């Protein structure tokens, strides 16, 4: 068993309106950052998972996303596993 550091990235589905991303994009423009497009705001969840292998930790985190961390109707997720030192 090892302790695996996992980061879950949850993003609003690309086809859906992301008003937060639009507002941030607008604010960046107001700050003078020209040429910034496609701003989207999501959420990152970091956790440490006890598992026999990295693959098992990834599988667990994926299950967590399907059942709680992401809403399958509106969000997409990505699971990134790295071994903690």
């Amino acid at each position, binding site marked *: 068993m090892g302790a695996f550091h996992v980061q879950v990235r949850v993003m609003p589905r690309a086809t*859906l*309106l992301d*008003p937060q991303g639009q507002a941030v994009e607008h604010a960046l423009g107001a700050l003078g950052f020209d040429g910034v497009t496609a701003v989207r705001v999501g959420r990152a969840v970091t956790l440490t998972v006890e598992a026999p292998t990295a693959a098992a930790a990834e599988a667990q985190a994926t299950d967590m996303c399907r059942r*709680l961390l992401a*809403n399958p*109707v*509106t969000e997409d997720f990505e699971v990134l596993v790295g071994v903690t030192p």
Partner: protein
Amino acid sequence: MRVAVIRFPGSNCDEDTSRAAARAGATAYYVWHRDTDLDQADVVMLPGGFAYGDYLRAGAIARFSPVMAAVVAHARAGGAVLGICNGFQILCEAGLLPGALMRNAGLQFLSRPVDVRVERTDTPFTCAYPTGAILRMPIAHGEGRYVAADDTLRALEAEGRVVLRYVGDNPNGSAADIAGITNAERTVVGMMPHPERAADPLLGGAPGAGVFASVMQCLPTLQGGSA
């Protein structure tokens, strides 16, 4: 008629909902979210508020409260369930209603009256209204933009499961101006407007009272006269 009003940590429309049900003549009582027994409820109401502070997503944590297993069992057995605002969000997260409620298109939390049209009167929460009735009721939400997959939206329309629709002004960017929907069996209803806040003439009219009157009028018939 026994109406169980579920209280989550962060519910804040529980008393209004209970009073509106009692005013219609029901026996209304509270069930704490850690309880697992609905105490022979005929109807379950999930009130508005901010259960669990809306952490993660509105309704995402509340759906795992111990009481939700009983609510889901009640619904699966054909029992009537109403979710108002945060309660609607919880019903979607729990999979009792399709789709999801996302951040309002304009980002702002909206607390103001809106007009909704009663599209369906074949549910236990709208049967006391004439079809097409326009109700002015308050909304108070930051996440009320109804979203669902295209095939889900098509099915909702084809099966006549859009119960309430915003008219004149879609406040939050909801798909197809949807303000309330029902399940295929027409026993579970979720709505973003707050009928319990518009159910007392002292508060300037009672267009929402019909939601609670509907329960008293129609549920006994829908239950085959057993209640």
